[in-house]
């Protein structure tokens, strides 16, 4: 589904990703962990098409298409969804209106009929339950005045509405208390259907207790330096990253 080969990317002239290789198959859940500054959020941003990030070399294909040549909206229409680490507040645009526009633009791109208000409302009410959203939240301006937890729930709600084939969760657990974490994780789990894939970027193993990954990778200095199963996450939680850093740094020096 997603294939990243030798990806080198930089932001403000500083190289962050330094030859990253990564494969995701349909239905898989991959966790990407790593210390601060290792390039986790850069990876998410490059995949979503944030223009401040410059791709220097390498390729990314998504279902056979060259992802890096696509605009952010085309990536979304093709089925990629980024749950933002810092969801943006958009005063004056109601959540419902925003999502209706988004859902219909995605539908149009697929040659599907757009949903009218009534049909849209029905779908929305269904999906709201997934993340325990109340109606008032859909009427409010996008993320405006939302608490940290509400913002992250809203991200998952949008994901549920847009039904992507690949969802990238960029530190969705940051700033969440345990109840909000549970709601968000339940939402994500409800969307796991054996076909939809997830890349879960996180600092902490805690989220992975709820969203159990098939694969865990450690990103360090712009490369994936270690891959394993969910047990790797537990090991990292216990031992920290220093042993991996030492392993990598000594092999580079040798």
């Amino acid at each position, binding site marked *: 589904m997603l294939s990243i080969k030798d990806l080198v990317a930089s932001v403000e002239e500083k190289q962050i990703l330094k030859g990253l290789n990564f494969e995701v198959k349909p239905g898989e859940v991959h966790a990407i962990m790593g210390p601060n500054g290792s390039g986790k959020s850069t990876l998410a941003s490059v995949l*979503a098409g944030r223009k401040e990030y410059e791709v220097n070399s390498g390729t990314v294909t998504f279902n056979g298409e060259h992802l890096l040549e696509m605009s952010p909206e085309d990536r*979304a229409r093709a089925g990629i969804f980024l749950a933002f680490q810092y969801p*943006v507040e*958009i*005063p*004056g645009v109601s959540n419902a209106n925003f999502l209706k526009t*988004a859902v219909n*633009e995605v539908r149009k791109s697929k040659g599907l009929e757009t949903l009218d208000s009534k049909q849209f409302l029905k779908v929305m009410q269904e999906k709201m339950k997934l993340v325990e959203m109340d109606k008032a939240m859909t009427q409010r301006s996008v993320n405006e005045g939302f608490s940290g937890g509400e913002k992250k729930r809203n991200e998952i709600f949008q994901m549920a509405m847009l039904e992507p084939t690949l969802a990238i969760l960029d530190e969705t657990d940051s700033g969440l208390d345990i109840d909000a974490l549970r709601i968000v994780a339940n939402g994500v789990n409800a969307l796991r259907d054996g076909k939809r894939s997830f890349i879960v970027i996180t600092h902490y193993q805690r989220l992975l207790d709820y969203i159990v990954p098939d694969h865990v990778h450690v990103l360090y200095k712009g490369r994936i330096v270690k891959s394993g199963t969910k047990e790797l996450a537990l090991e990292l939680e216990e031992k920290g990253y220093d042993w991996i850093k030492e392993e990598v740094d000594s092999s580079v020096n040798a």
Partner: protein
Amino acid sequence: MSTSILNNSSAECFMQAVDHFRELYGNHLPAQKSLQTNAAAVFTQLGIPTTKHEEWKYTSLAVLAKNNYRTVNPSHNCSLSKSDVASLALTKDTLLYVIENGKFNASASNGHALPTGITIGSLADMAGDPRVQNHLMKHADFSEESLVALNTALSFDGVVIIADAKTECATPIQIAVINNTAGEALNIPVRILVVAEKNAVFNVVETHHSFGVKSPVLVNVVSEVVIAEQARVNYIKLQDEDQNTCHVNYHKVNMARDSYQHISTLTWGGGLVRNNLNIRLDDVNCTSYLNGLTIAKDFQVIDHHTVVDHAMPNCYSNELYKGIIDGHAQGVFNGKIFVRKDAQKTNAFQSNKNVLLSDDASMNTKPQLEIFADDVKCSHGATTGQIDEEALFYLRARGIGEASARALLNHAFAADVIEQIPDENLKAVLLDRLTARLYA
């Protein structure tokens, strides 16, 4: 048969035009003869302001020297019919009145029955009415405003709206001010008088349009709005002329005790548009809202000058102006608030927010507070920025195309001004018009 203007200095041209016009057509408002003669003299003295004038620093009227503007003949025949203007009515039940090239066009007006207590008519017909004479040309002070003087000297028609005491009319009264041209440069004076007697409550919509062949036009509008005790007036100006139009608009409101006025100036057409709002809170407990919206592109110049004059205690004023400026367009906002010595316990707020959509767009904004009382609460602020790139990316990352995403953000920014309008029907219609303008 034309009062043509020589092409050297615009001021001189218009001065000659005033003399010539008055020679040719005489005085068309006999009851206001001395005021009009006086105004002609004042205009001759003041001339057309240049950018050396502090109040005209960013807005040049040089365009007025580029064309020979003929002042419309007061006895011209109107040509627009009901069907020509039907689409201008903002709502189905709107009481629509048409001013075509400065003249009241009774046959194009839609003729919906007027509610009891409301009188609407041609200013030329009503100028001798004592209720009109009491106010007409008595409020818009032309002694230092040359374009008001020009309008006052040349005015021959327009519209009068009078609401008797205790009249309530929710149906909007709409004045469609149309310049209907055939290729010739025209100078069109338009005069509007609105009188709200004690406890009257109603909505006025003044809309501006261009018909006919695109031609350079000077539309010079002066409105006087007199609001008696406890009366409430919701006034909307929607300016949507073509870009050959130079539109200068002076709007004077005089408020008596316990009165309320809300004015929204929505400007998205015209080549050069200058709005002067002058609101005098002349007695205690007045409430006044002034909101404005500029949506400019190409080489449009849109200038909002406002004066809120707090003369007496316990009054409230609130001002919100927003601008979206694209292309090479220029926006200007200048908001003065005076709080006079007697105006204790004044609450006066002002905010101006702008978004520039291109590198060549510009905005000049100047909030001014002059406070002579000591127990007041006042604030003002101005911001000018670009479209929020983070928000834009967020929308695009959800599959919304870049053009729609920009339109969505601009709409949200601008809708804020229209949302304040205290009439649900008008608000809804104007939000639709805004959508049409932004997604065009």
